[in-house]
């Protein structure tokens, strides 16, 4: 418990001040405060509560069922292009905000995925999730979406390779959060 509080030493004060601020905004009918809560906070909060528990349950199941050897073989150090392709595919079919990708990255790392593939996964996750593409095409057009994805893929593979090298050279770790 103590370690938990220490880890979140900035978070709890922020949450407390926000609760007080929103509470008094509603009490005194202060519009900016009400707007921050109703238009912005509530939207993110809903997104977080709907998506994240599901993703964490999936992570937990994956953790107990999928053996490390399987992951190592398919997306580990020696997996090459095929491994890159697999992590990209995994990222593309997912949904959710960027911060939903980090716990998955931790799990992949624990199971023996190579650092390069982990960073490709994260970049791919930010760039082209299929559920979001329908939105993008609808509002910005097919040409925009296609161009953006085609140009972005080589860029994020390069970022993945650079980050993976840095990660290995410095013996970095991914922690549980």
């Amino acid at each position, binding site marked *: 418990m103590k370690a938990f509080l220490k880890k979140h030493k900035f978070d709890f004060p922020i949450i407390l001040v926000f609760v007080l601020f929103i509470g008094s905004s509603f009490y005194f009918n202060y519009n900016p405060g009400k707007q921050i809560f109703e238009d912005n906070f509530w939207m993110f909060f809903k997104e*977080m509560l709907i998506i994240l528990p599901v993703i964490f349950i999936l992570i937990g199941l994956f953790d107990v069922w999928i053996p490390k050897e399987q992951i190592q073989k398919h997306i580990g150090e020696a997996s090459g292009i095929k491994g890159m392709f697999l992590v990209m595919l995994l990222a593309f079919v997912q949904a959710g905000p960027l911060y939903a990708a980090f716990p998955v990255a931790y799990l992949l790392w624990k199971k023996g995925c190579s650092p390069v593939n982990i960073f490709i996964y994260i970049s791919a996750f930010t760039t082209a999730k299929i559920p979001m593409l329908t939105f993008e095409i609808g509002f910005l057009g097919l040409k925009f979406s296609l161009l953006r994805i085609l140009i972005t893929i080589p860029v994020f593979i390069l970022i993945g390779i650079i980050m993976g090298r840095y990660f290995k050279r410095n013996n970095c770790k991914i922690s549980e959060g």
Partner: protein
Amino acid sequence: MIPLTIFTTVLVIISFIIDRKKTIKGIQKGLKQFFKILPTLLSVIIIISIVLFFVSDKFLMEYLGKEAGLGAYVSAAAIGSVSLLPGFVAYPLAGILVQSGVSYSVIAVFITTLMMVGILTIPIEARYFGLKTTIIRNALSFIGAITVGTVMAFIYYLT
């Protein structure tokens, strides 16, 4: 979102039929991780909510609009890097911006930085990757996003 929930429910049921104990252990493991990170998530979305209050549609129009010139690209990159918007909000907003005269190339810079760089989510990312790796990843992604935006701008300029 609904497909993911259905998919997960089906998996949980199958997993439960095969091995009850293992399933419960898995779900517990997952949810424990969720509650561990929850305070950080909450404080980050609080900060984002407050920042977004100041970044209104009108504000965006002013800084990304036709008259803004080269400054529009700089603003797009800066605003995109700081903000975090779910796709179902970002794309309709980008659609409105395009319709009111913001160029596709500025939108490209805005959307790519918005998605690849997350300055406000650094506290969450750092919990997993450590601060240094997080900063390097975001810096590289920023350069990457600018590159993508520039290439897109060039293509839109040519066609």
